């Protein structure tokens, strides 16, 4: 495990009937687990609106894990089967918005699978630590940004013809809080 000294923010949406029980079983069995995960209990994985995941990821979470009952085992018969379709769409959508799709995972863990839960959480946490912190859409220097948009790019889509031409965050007018934090010393962004 690299970089395990620092906690990342990982949000877990766990269904009340299987995965929450599984996590509880892992606790009762006194398995040692990473401490990065913050668990939110939901009635069913079908309750997980993809917006929950999007909001978490865009608001400062470094990873999101959704866990429900195994297919065919749902307490409500079919909640996780709807969830599977929705969450798969979301997983495939994430790359276009510039979020690594590995930051989001949905898994099935039953109430008796304490050790499987431990394995899953440990592996997912390790993966997030490998990926590092989620880039932030922190506010850029505001007035400069507005001017940048108004003066240079109000016509057509100049960025589309030369993607990333000067999209570097180090580009003068686009100095962001991240950059400022970066100047003040490494890890400034994550010293939260």
């Amino acid at each position, binding site marked *: 495990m690299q970089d395990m000294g620092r906690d990342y923010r990982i949000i877990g949406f766990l269904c009340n009937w299987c995965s929450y029980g599984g996590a509880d079983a892992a606790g009762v069995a006194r398995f040692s687990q990473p401490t990065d995960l913050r668990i939110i209990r939901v009635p069913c994985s079908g309750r997980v609106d993809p917006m929950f995941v*999007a909001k978490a990821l865009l608001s400062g979470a470094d990873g999101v894990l959704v866990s429900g009952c195994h297919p065919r085992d749902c307490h409500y018969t079919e909640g996780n089967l709807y969830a599977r*379709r929705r969450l798969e769409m979301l997983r*495939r959508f994430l790359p276009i918005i510039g979020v690594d799709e590995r930051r989001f995972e949905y898994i099935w863990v039953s109430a008796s699978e304490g050790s499987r839960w431990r394995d899953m959480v440990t592996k997912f946490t390790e993966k997030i630590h490998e990926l590092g912190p989620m880039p932030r859409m*922190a506010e*850029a220097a505001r007035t400069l940004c507005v001017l940048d*948009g108004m003066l240079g790019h109000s016509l*057509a889509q100049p960025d589309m013809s030369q993607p990333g031409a000067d999209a570097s965050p180090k580009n003068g007018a686009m100095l962001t809080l991240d950059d400022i934090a970066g100047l003040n010393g490494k890890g400034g962004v994550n010293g939260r």
Partner: protein
Amino acid sequence: MDGEKAAVDRMAELRAAVALELPNVDFVLGYGRGFDPLHATPVAVRGEKDLARLIFDPTCVQNLATCLYGLRGKRMGLVVKGCDSRSVIQLLQEKIVERENLVIFGLPCDGVLDMAKVRVAADITRVREVRFEENQVRLLLPGGETVLSRRDVLADKCLRCRYPNPLIHDHMIGAELPAQSAEDTYADIEAFEKLSTQERFDFWKRQMSRCIRCYACRNACPLCVCKHVCLADSREPHWLSSEATLQEKWLFQVMHALHLAGRCTECGECQRSCPMGIPILLLKRKMNRELKDIFNYEAGVSLDAVPPLHTFLMEEDKIKDRGLLW
């Protein structure tokens, strides 16, 4: 000039069809000439005297189906292009508008202008006259005539159009046209995804810094049908705050795309209406591409198709079991 004669015939046919239906409807929503020869504007035809105001040419860029939600319950006629008809089908499929209240005048369309492209190609602030020819657009400007290649100024969606002919109609006006392409190649998405994750993130960060949060994209979307209870305006639950931060703007765009999963017909109104020219259609196209790949489904094509996110299969063909992979 066969083309001009065909256009005149088509307008005569449209006016005759509208006149025929006028007794049965409250009004017919069509296109009329806007403030200059390059702009069209929606026109409500309520009587015979309004018929002369109807036009149809490549300046008719709007998707009139956007009005349907606000006007539901009224008995109305609607002029649609091929792409607009998909929005109508989607609204009918979701049972948001009623078929018996709607008389649809379908017009096969060979592409509409992208005004952003025209503006880049010529100074059109005082355009006097526009003539559309086979492969050219002639603009009569104060400084003389400018000829643009039609392909250069057509909207991107028209260059890859697969449904030039309305898929649903009560009156088909004019001859059917061949499609521009058989399959959507999603070349724009492919190109965009060649960038690294960080570059993509920075791209959107930059684009969102230009967003003025006017919600034109939402208001122009024919399928944004919960405008009165939109989560963007809701305080309970408080999804978005009114802070003008990049994060709030970005979350709104992501929300728009997520709420259109399996519903978006790619009419492109969100992107067209954006005053800052932010390419937000890219998000919806990505969603549609994955939808096509996983469920082989396309929104707004069939009235009785079951939307894939409203159903499930016990064993999914294209979805691998997660959690065993790592």
